[in-house]
């Protein structure tokens, strides 16, 4: 905060005229590049369709139509698609935690024979670009091996592949590795089985990493497009992104824009609420410098 802060590339004063100019320019450019588009969208969504087609565009609507939002909601039946998305995202999140937490715990603390080999096989999948698995994954969900079930139009087609997430397991395992084994041994001496140890000892300590994994999985599931596009052939089951893309060509532009705002809001709200965790997840996602 003060001038005595850590020395960086420049050693100039942080209060001089040069700094003030640089700061102002950066502030204006950033606002124009990253805030203006959102403002332009939110305001544009309140213009009548005719006004949106006008050249040059008006800056503020001549007549404000906040009703566009409710109209868009009804016209595109967005409530249904929101609900579909919530089911997909919540399920993906829950299944990832249910599958990946015990797996990471086993690999970190129970250390079975061949555990490192299993971990390595999981981590190898991180090296594979997801796009290259699209076709065989799709064929797999249309006819699940052995079980012979068709998961097309079933949210499980998103939930289950989401659980095969080596990165989650890696993050969780690294965190569990830091929990002293003495603590777990003590609980075990008191007669706690592995499930109790996981539930009562490990998970309460792992809250920060659970928050990171939760947010990563929720954001990823909400943003995903190509896989839900393939999985839900029934329009009634589609997620918000897939539905919006389907509606785009035939929807009046002002209502489409209103729909975009509504679709953007939940993630923006999540970001504002969990900023700290999301940014922590970002650096957990990269490698330390």
């Amino acid at each position, binding site marked *: *905060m003060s001038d005595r802060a850590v020395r*960086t*590339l420049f*050693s100039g004063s*942080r209060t001089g005229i040069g700094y003030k100019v*640089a700061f102002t320019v950066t*502030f204006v450019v950033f606002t124009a590049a*990253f*805030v203006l*588009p959102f403002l*332009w969208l939110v305001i*544009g969504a309140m213009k009548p369709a005719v006004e949106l087609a006008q*050249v*040059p*565009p008006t800056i503020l609507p001549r007549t404000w139509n906040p009703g566009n939002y409710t109209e868009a909601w009804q016209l595109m039946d967005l409530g249904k698609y929101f609900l579909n998305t919530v089911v997909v995202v919540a399920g993906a999140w829950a299944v990832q935690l249910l*599958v990946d937490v015990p*797996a990471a715990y*086993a690999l970190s603390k*129970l*250390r*079975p*024979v*061949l555990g*490192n080999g299993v971990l390595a*096989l*999981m981590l190898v999948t991180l*090296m*594979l*670009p997801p*796009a*290259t*698995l*699209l*076709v*065989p*994954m*799709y*064929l*797999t969900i249309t006819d699940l*091996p052995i079980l012979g079930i068709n998961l097309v139009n079933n949210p499980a087609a998103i939930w*289950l592949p989401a*659980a*095969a997430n080596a990165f989650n397991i890696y993050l969780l395992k690294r965190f569990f590795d830091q929990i002293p*084994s*003495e603590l777990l041994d003590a609980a075990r001496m008191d007669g706690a089985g*592995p499930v109790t140890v996981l539930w009562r000892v490990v998970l309460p300590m792992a809250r920060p990493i659970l928050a990171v994994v939760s947010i990563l999985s929720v954001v990823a599931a909400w*943003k995903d*497009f*190509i896989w839900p596009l393939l999985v839900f052939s029934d329009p009634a089951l589609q997620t*918000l*992104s897939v539905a*919006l893309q389907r509606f*785009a060509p035939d929807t009046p532009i002002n209502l489409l824009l209103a729909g975009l705002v509504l*679709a*953007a809001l939940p*993630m923006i709200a999540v*970001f504002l609420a969990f900023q700290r965790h999301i*940014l922590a997840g*970002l650096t957990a996602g990269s490698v330390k*410098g």
Partner: protein
Amino acid sequence: MSSSTLLRPAGAPAPDASRRPGRAPGRLRRRIVENLTAYGFLCAALLCFALFSWYPIVRGVLLAFQQVNFITDPVWVGWDNFELLFKDPLFWDAWRNTLLFTGLALVFGFFVPFLIAVLLNELRHAKGYFRLVVYLPVMLPPVVAALLWKWFYDPGPGLFNSLLRAVGIDGPHWLDDSSTSLLSLVLVATWSNLGSATLIYLAALQTIPGELYEAAELDGANVVQRMRHVTIPQTRFVLLVLLLLQVVATMQIFTEPYIMTGGGPDDSTVTVLLLLYRYAFVYNDFGTASALSTLLLLVLSVFSFAYLRVTRKAEA
């Protein structure tokens, strides 16, 4: 087989062994129980990985050499799928477009975030605001960003050309012109994603000890020299890792061309993944689509291996 005992923390007692050193069968039984418990915890994950990662990997490569119609058994066709691909002029267009996209995306998506991060690291005010707004687009679902920018790009009432018109420039036709269409997609993708790279760089820059800059300055190094000899070497690892990750990510570009241009105009935005999508889900030719994804995999595995080696070295 003894890994479970070998890996026991040094201080932790091995109760069975210390109590009854001679009773091997008891120890064995205990170890079997321990392993069964561990694999009990692992089984859901193993099943998910087997079904949705490991099996599809193998199957994807096999499919590349097969013809499938889902009525009769798949037929082994050798290199036919690949030959078909090589004869498709779109195949070469798709690779050219994808490489061009990746190249342009690196110019913007790799250098710009670094410069932004260096700049933000210098500023002492409104840091929270900058960090917040640069990351906002990252939270936007890609479909929303693509549809939003499609509207911005509209040559008539669109935001960009309106701004250009205000300063007296006749703007380009963006998505409707094959000379600017790919660049237009790069700009959206960059705007959407640069926030995460910026913040990762920023975190890396903040770990650089100030004494290094001080020492360089005392030695008479100017700003450019300090950048070259302090900033870049100190963040080299993060720069390299993000470079590799970005190559792998941008070569899988799909959502933007699918929604904004559908591959046009004149196939100028057909990317490898868009072509793959067409082969598989429009023509239902899963064999040829798999041949294409196998080729993509081969190309990208170079970068994946590089990434693996870089990060391994750093961990060691």
